[in-house]
């Protein structure tokens, strides 16, 4: 029995632009287990960042959660759990603000711009502590220094008074992580935290994140397009394409026996060190326009195993194994087991 932390059901997030409605997240179902690392993988623009932002209700305008549930299993001090539907909380309300930073925190892609350059590192770390806990400024500062130490920043007592623009990219990302961990969150969302860093720094930050995930025993939702990173850190993998999770399973299964043609194609498109000099297979075609989604299965225009019905029938989430979901007509018809999760029909 998996201890569930966050259960996402049929999440729909639309962006209401002048040019039309963009269905950025189109029926996402996702379960995030407690204390595990789950990777959300997908190409740019597939809606993985928006999904993660939805958990904190910090989707940018004109985006909005249209429907769906995000059931957060909050652990009370007495050990019991209470289920909160994050999707129902108003984005500017107090309830979600008590979750943000304290229960679920997030680090972002660009350490250069994600910290305010006008405020000291200490100011920004202490802000969350002072906000969520009743501590004195001095105490908060002590904790800030301690956190900076934990994330591997040298001379944290001096660095706490430094402005972020005086730090290197790796140091800034460490400071970001320290900030995110300041209130011992149960879940940390990392939105491509290493993309903007150089390779050595990337590896260091990854190690640090994994290390901290174990130390704090928190769930880590790691968003990336880099399958190499996924292989390194993931317990669970969810593959996303055009606003949907097309396949989800544990990391070993995904890498050894991918089911969805998209996952298969993704895996074929990355080089392996041990690989012989065969050509990489890029995925055919491009990600379609966000305004005109393909009918039927959203992947069918680019699919190498396309069938006739793919352009008409929208596949449902199918359980091919106990812990292996795939959303593809190839398996839907073969497997008798269907999830009770409904599908969303499209015009």
């Amino acid at each position: 029995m998996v201890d569930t932390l966050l259960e996402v059901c049929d999440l729909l997030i639309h962006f209401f632009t002048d040019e039309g409605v963009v269905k950025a997240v189109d029926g996402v179902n996702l379960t995030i287990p407690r204390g595990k690392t789950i990777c959300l993988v997908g190409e740019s623009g597939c809606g993985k960042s928006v999904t993660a932002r939805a958990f904190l209700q910090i989707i940018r305008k004109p985006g909005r959660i249209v429907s769906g549930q995000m059931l957060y299993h909050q652990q009370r001090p007495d050990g019991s759990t209470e289920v909160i539907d994050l999707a129902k909380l108003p984005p500017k309300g107090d309830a979600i603000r008590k979750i943000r930073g304290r229960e679920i925190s997030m680090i972002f892609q660009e350490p250069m711009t994600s910290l305010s350059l006008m405020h000291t590192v200490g100011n920004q770390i202490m802000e969350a502590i002072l906000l969520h806990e009743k501590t004195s400024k001095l105490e908060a500062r002590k904790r800030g220094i301690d956190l900076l130490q934990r994330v591997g920043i040298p001379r944290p007592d001096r660095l706490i008074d430094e402005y972020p623009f005086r730090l290197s990219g790796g140091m800034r990302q460490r400071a970001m992580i320290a900030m995110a961990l300041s209130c011992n969150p149960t879940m940390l969302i990392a939105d491509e935290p290493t993309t903007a860093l150089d390779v050595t720094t990337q590896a260091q930050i990854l190690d640090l994140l994994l290390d901290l995930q174990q130390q704090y025993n928190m769930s880590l939702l790691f968003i990336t397009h880099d399958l190499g990173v996924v292989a390194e850190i993931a317990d669970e993998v969810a593959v996303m394409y055009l606003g949907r999770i097309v396949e989800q399973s544990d990391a070993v299964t995904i890498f050894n026996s991918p089911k969805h043609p998209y996952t298969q194609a993704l895996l074929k498109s990355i080089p392996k060190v041990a690989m012989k000099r065969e050509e990489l297979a890029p995925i055919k075609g491009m990600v379609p326009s966000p305004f005109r989604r393909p009918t039927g299965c959203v992947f069918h225009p680019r699919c190498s195993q396309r069938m006739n019905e793919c352009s008409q029938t929208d596949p449902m989430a199918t359980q091919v194994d106990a812990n292996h979901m795939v959303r593809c007509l190839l398996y839907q018809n073969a497997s008798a087991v269907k999830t009770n999760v409904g599908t969303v029909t499209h015009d």
Partner: protein
Amino acid sequence: MWQYLARRFVYMIFTIWIISLVSFAVIQLPPGDYVTSMISQMYASGGQNMPPEYIAQLREQYGLDQPLHLQYFKWIRKIVLHGEFGYSFIYREDSREMIFARLPVTFAISAFSMLFIWIMAIPIGVFSAAHQYSIGDYVFTFIGFIGLAVPSFLMALILMFISYKYFDRAMIGLFSVEYADAPWSIEKFIDMLKHLWIPVIIIGTGGTAGMIRTMRANLLDELNRPYVDTARAKGVSENRLLWKYPVRHALNPFVSTIGWVLPGLVGGEVIVSVVLNLPTSGPVIFDSLMKQDMYMAAGFILMVSTLTVIGTFISDLLLVWLDPRIRLT
């Protein structure tokens, strides 16, 4: 920081030097030299012909028979060393007296206008950006546009007309009758403050409209920056977040706009004072230009511009204080 300040300081000195050249050029503008315009002016105002010896003496006194660069040097040296700006034939004394009497009022009005602009523009700009496309935003945008479209002298005219027609008193002057000719005192200063708000509002309105738009645009840019998401993800409330992060960031470019708002304010002050007949620099500059009392005019142009440039330099200092990126590099 020191390098930045040193550079700004050198720029300031250089600009002031250019200003002095321009002001000197203003003296040379009218046909003939200073003494000829002086003579014709005195003649026109009913004076009798001057003896040629006296004319020659005047020419020598001002070095008018020397080459231009020497004349410039003579002029600027007198200003720097003795504070003498040259003889004004309208007031029959050195221009200094008039310049030092009027300049402070001009700068009091300009400074208060700047203050007025800030007090109005920052909150309104923040509101407009934070509530983009709300009714309030549209109302302020529209008022802002009208503020931009109505030039200050027209607004002065309209206000003057209203006060004259409906409140039965001319809104002219800066002092009550009893203080008009009195020497400076605290009471007189307070009296001035009581009259000051009308020109301050008139001069400040155009600038306020512009600054609201600047503030709004700056802030809209900042509102989409990742650091705002970071702060929001920490659980900071919307209101606190707005003032602590984006507004703080948007203020930096805002401060440097002092540099280009101030010259406009001073220019506006000149023209509004002419309309409202305020005892500031404006009417004197205008009058001396009309009567070609060029030492007076040039002196005013020099001083008004120099003080404006110094004001800009002060805004640079303010920026150093405000922006750690400049302060620490």
